[in-house]
């Protein structure tokens, strides 16, 4: 039967490779090329994966910040000495909403002050980094002078021991170089340094926190 065809039978042009009879084996040139292509593809994928991983890691680094969990901090003083900065990026932070506005603030005054006033001999902070302002009898407000604070935590200890814990240490991210290899975190004996999201880089107590 000429000109006829079975249903489903496909016809290709005479020169179509699929009409060629099967060859006895792959040609050496084609196989070598295929091998090289496969290798190149593999390497490309590997490179892509490595780049993606590296970029991903870099992204995760920029997504987090080191911060001090105030509930774990033991005020050992290492924040003042271990930071790579000349003056530590760790500063005292004051949550006014937690503060009792005490006349005898144990974060501001020496344990046995001579007088309850701003005299240097009465102040606990060795660098004079806490400012005391009269609000109304008998309340005073205490604020941190960041430029003077070295992050020693002496005032924090006094506040935690006798007061409400409204003074606590925090890494100030406007000062921190964010190297992600925090030297203080390595030294912290209380494991108080934790990673927090960069979008919420502070671990503040109560409401109305300030001083950061």
């Amino acid at each position, binding site marked *: 039967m000429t000109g006829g065809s079975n249903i489903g039978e496909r016809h290709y042009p005479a020169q179509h490779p699929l009409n060629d009879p099967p060859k006895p*084996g*792959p*040609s*050496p040139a084609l*196989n*070598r090329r295929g*091998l090289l292509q*496969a*290798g190149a593809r*593999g390497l490309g994928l*590997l490179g892509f994966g490595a780049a993606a991983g590296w970029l991903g890691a870099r992204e995760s680094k920029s997504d987090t910040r080191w911060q001090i969990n*105030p*509930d774990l*901090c*033991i*005020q*050992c*003083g*290492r924040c*003042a*000495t*271990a930071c790579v900065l000349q003056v530590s990026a760790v500063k005292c932070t004051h949550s006014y909403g937690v*503060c*009792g*506005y*005490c*006349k*005898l*603030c*144990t974060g501001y005054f020496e*344990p*046995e002050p001579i007088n309850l006033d701003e005299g240097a001999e009465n102040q*606990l902070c*060795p660098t004079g980094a806490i400012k005391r302002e009269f609000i109304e*009898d*008998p*309340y005073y407000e205490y604020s941190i002078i960041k430029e003077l604070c070295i992050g*020693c*935590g*002496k*005032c*924090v*200890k*006094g506040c*935690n*021991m*006798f*007061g*409400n*814990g409204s003074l606590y240490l925090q890494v100030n991210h406007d000062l921190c170089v964010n190297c992600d*290899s*925090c030297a203080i*975190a*390595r*030294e*912290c*004996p*209380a*494991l108080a340094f934790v990673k927090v999201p960069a979008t919420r880089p502070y671990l503040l107590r109560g409401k109305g926190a300030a001083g950061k």
Partner: protein
Amino acid sequence: MSDEPPNNPSPADPTQLDRARRSLLRAAAWGGGIAGIGGLVGLSANRLARRTPAREAATPALGREFTYDVERFQTSDPALLRFVETARFPAGLERARNLTAGPDGSIWVVGTGGIRKFSAAGELTLAIPLDRPVYALALRASGEILAGQAGQISVLDAKGGVLTVWSDLPAGLLPTSIAIAGPHILVADAGNRVVLKLDATGNKTGVIGARDPDRNLRGFVVPSPYFCVRMASDGLLRVTNPGEHQIESYTLDGDLEAAWGTGSFAVAGFCGCCNPVSFDIFPDGSFVTCEKGLPRVKLYDSAGGFTGLVAGPEAFPEYLQAANAGTPHSLGSGIYAAIDPAGRVLVLDVVGGTVRIMQRKEPKP
């Protein structure tokens, strides 16, 4: 016979090429796996290195001038001790917050978890579980229990059944102490820094201690939730003014009659920013007081003169350990005292979660 050596297959051999490709893929898979494992090990090591602290003791990294040091106040002169501990037992609450002595010698402890009643010997006789923490308790002559909770006062029968709840009280109510004076119920409200005066049915009939310069009332300074009221046998209320380091005397009409106490870390004074946190009154009008920060239970005569110690700071090692470690205080760190009908001082150590029974060492002069 081929010219090529037999172990050097022809590149045209599809089987050999397929084998080579498989070998390559296998090698790549192994390599990738090993590299991946290496990466994971490196990552873990890096994380561990970050999180492994310098394990040397947490000694201060700075000199003395940068170290908060109150160690010299954390021991007391044994010659000042007037009481000796004769027994102690666990309060058995998730967090104990206050205690009261009953007229029959019973010991009542309240806190998170409810109310627990103990015999004078410390055996549990009644447990009243309550969902909301109880901050204060008072016992009526009828046997009814007044339990102070945030925003309300619950009235319970002697077995712990709820009779009624007084909730129509000032917003922000935090009743940290309750005293009963005849028909009056006096509630130390640490939330609003006043003493509320209620009638027998819980209706507010007055406020004591609100700032009023015209009446020479400077107001209560209550920086943290420790605020205590007691009725003395002389007919005057005694109320702590912790921010002023004083105990003040008021008439039931709210007139300030007297005050005593000074702020000092020395044993005769009240230490820290806000002390005393609680007190009770002996039948002769003398006082037992409790301080936080430096955990001290002390004795004062009726005029406020220091007469000795019930327990010094060294009697509360767990408390001192927590304080020295720098962990934050506040609600969890109070010390409470109550005087039972036998003249014993019952001390609630909140940090240790125990009740101590303290007996006088010598007849009172």
